[in-house]
């Protein structure tokens, strides 16, 4: 996070006071402004995809399914077809513009549904412990051991292909246990921390502890889980379409790749046919991962306060104004002091 934000950031002086001041600014003012460049890039790319998902079918120059009679080979990009055509003369750019919506909607829908499930189940299990934990973990484990992709091939093979929602629900039903497991483990660990015990001792109500003490410390995990789920949904739906288990008459990145593979696009070296949907799916996924960097930082104040200390190739420079000297060689072993490593005052 640090160095990529560096171009936007004046390099802070070595003084502790300046760093403290910057840390305060970081907390109070313009959290958005201080998002690292990678997160901004991710947000922008994702925004472009969402924008295209909304207006894509309106600005598509051709009907994506319209063929040119008599054509048998894919044609390279030209002024008339900016990304060339498929072997039946369908415009690749139009397919891409129209297909974005289905892919984006499916990914986000699955992400929202599955992450909501993981948070709800993971936090309940981790916080309550005991019998509810046993029950919910059992549920998660049963869903976890079901082989998702083969099961999806079987289930979706028999479901009527009526749109994104049924697919998103099936994907969510199989996708939530991953996040739930991680969130449960983290909740379990956080629950035992001193600050939660302190909150409990001071009489905070349970819901307050859950939402104000534990949840904010899991935002990074939850965001990562959301990102992971959206990625999983996009990659899985693309893979399913590639295997032919999808509504092949509608356009998405997956069905584009399916038809490209079916039309031997790779063997024909028709890169304009098979590359755009693959690259777009990868870009979409990458934007989500990049966005995660920013959320990670926003959810973890400690990362912000030590930021100025972690810059460049330096292996260690603490935020503390007291410099830590590199140990002289051979004097590194302070095993006698090991007890100090976990001992807090």
């Amino acid at each position, binding site marked *: 996070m640090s160095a990529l934000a560096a171009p936007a950031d004046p390099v802070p002086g070595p003084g502790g006071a300046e760093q403290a001041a910057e840390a305060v600014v970081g907390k109070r003012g313009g959290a958005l402004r201080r998002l690292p460049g990678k997160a901004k890039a991710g947000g922008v790319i994702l925004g472009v995809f969402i924008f295209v998902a909304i207006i894509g079918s309106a600005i598509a120059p051709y009907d994506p399914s319209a063929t040119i009679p008599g054509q048998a080979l894919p044609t390279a990009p030209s002024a008339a077809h900016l990304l060339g055509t498929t072997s039946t003369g369908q415009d690749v750019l139009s397919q891409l513009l129209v297909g974005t919506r289905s892919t984006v909607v499916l990914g986000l829908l699955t992400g929202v549904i599955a992450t909501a499930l993981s948070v709800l189940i993971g936090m309940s299990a981790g916080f309550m412990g005991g019998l509810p934990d046993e029950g919910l973990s059992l549920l998660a484990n049963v869903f976890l051991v079901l082989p998702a992709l*083969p099961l999806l091939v079987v289930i979706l093979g028999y479901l009527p292909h009526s749109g994104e929602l049924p697919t998103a629900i099936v994907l969510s039903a199989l996708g939530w246990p991953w996040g739930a497991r991680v969130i449960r483990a983290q909740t379990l660990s956080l629950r035992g921390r001193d600050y939660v015990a302190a909150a409990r001792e001071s009489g905070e109500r349970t819901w307050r502890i859950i939402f104000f003490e534990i949840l904010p410390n899991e935002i990074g995990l939850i965001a990562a889980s959301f990102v992971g789920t959206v990625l999983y949904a996009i990659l899985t739906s693309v893979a399913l379409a590639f295997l032919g288990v999808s509504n092949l008459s509608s356009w998405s990145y997956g069905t584009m790749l399916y038809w490209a593979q079916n039309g031997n696009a790779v063997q024909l070296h028709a890169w304009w046919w098979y590359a755009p949907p693959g690259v777009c799916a990868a870009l979409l996924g990458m934007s989500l991962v990049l966005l995660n960097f920013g959320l990670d930082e926003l959810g973890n104040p400690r*990362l912000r306060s030590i930021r100025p200390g972690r810059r460049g190739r330096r292996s260690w420079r603490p935020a503390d104004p007291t410099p830590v000297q590199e140990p002289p060689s051979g004097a590194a072993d302070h095993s006698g002091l090991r007890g100090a490593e976990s001992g807090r005052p």
Partner: protein
Amino acid sequence: MWFIARRLAFYAVAAWAAITVNFAIPRILPGNAVDSMLAKFPQLDASSLHALEAEFGAHVHGSIFSQYFTYLGNLAHGNLGLSVTLYPSKVTTVLAQTLPWTVILVGTATIISFVLGTLLGIVTAWRRGGWLDRMLPAFTFLQATPYFFLALIAIELFAVNWGLFPFGQGYSLGLAPGWNWSFISSAIYHSILPAFTIVITSMAGWMLQMRNMMITTVAEDYVLVAQAKGLSPRRVMFTYAARNAILPNLAGFALSLGFVVAGALVMEIVFSYPGIGLTLYNAVTSADYPLLQGIFLVISLTVLLACLLADIVYFIADPRTRTRAAY
């Protein structure tokens, strides 16, 4: 000990649930094994049809409960029935033939990917802002690429254009499987490209997770204390920071070992690799339910074992999960 006993009981219940779901799948879905057999051999007469029905357990007239207990009894004897598409091979035989391919290739690739990704994650977090950190978008791009797309491009580049590696299959066609060097070297040669594509696409996930956990850990007081004690940076990095940050990655690794069997469906299809994923895909598309059930069962049980492993890892490595009410 009490913890392990309770967990084992818990996993017994989960295994039972998985087995029951497995029992239910072919009974919920339309079509059955005998119908698909009939489609393959339309000239079957009535008596052999009845024999087949008895064998595959289709059109059984007993109640669902008696079917269920018959199924459990067969399982207990290791009897998974006969495959329809590879008739008259036993499902267990098919499993024994295909499982090693998948386990060796995907297992090795998973371990390489985990070790590489975790190491890179440690270094990336330790040297935040270093060149590896700046390379992260490239790694995430690889992670976000649809697997088969990458695999197709790898085949196009390495196999078609440059001719460095074979297109697919597990070994050269002329060879008979056996424990001789020419076969083994051929198998290794054929597995490099698939393994490479798996490592490339899955490494970034480990790297990212390790980096994120490591960044949190590096800010902990004990890391500062370790630094203040004058320990060497390498020692602080590995035995203080990384050791405390590696937990989610280890648990994830234990889990992913369980998915070694199931996770390579697309890889095996793209590379025509003779493993369990390709067999599963063929079983699904040809409604070979006995084989499908057998493979699902193996996958479910391996994943369960992996979950148990992940739990034990957590239990041993993180004392905080051992608190009063947790277990």
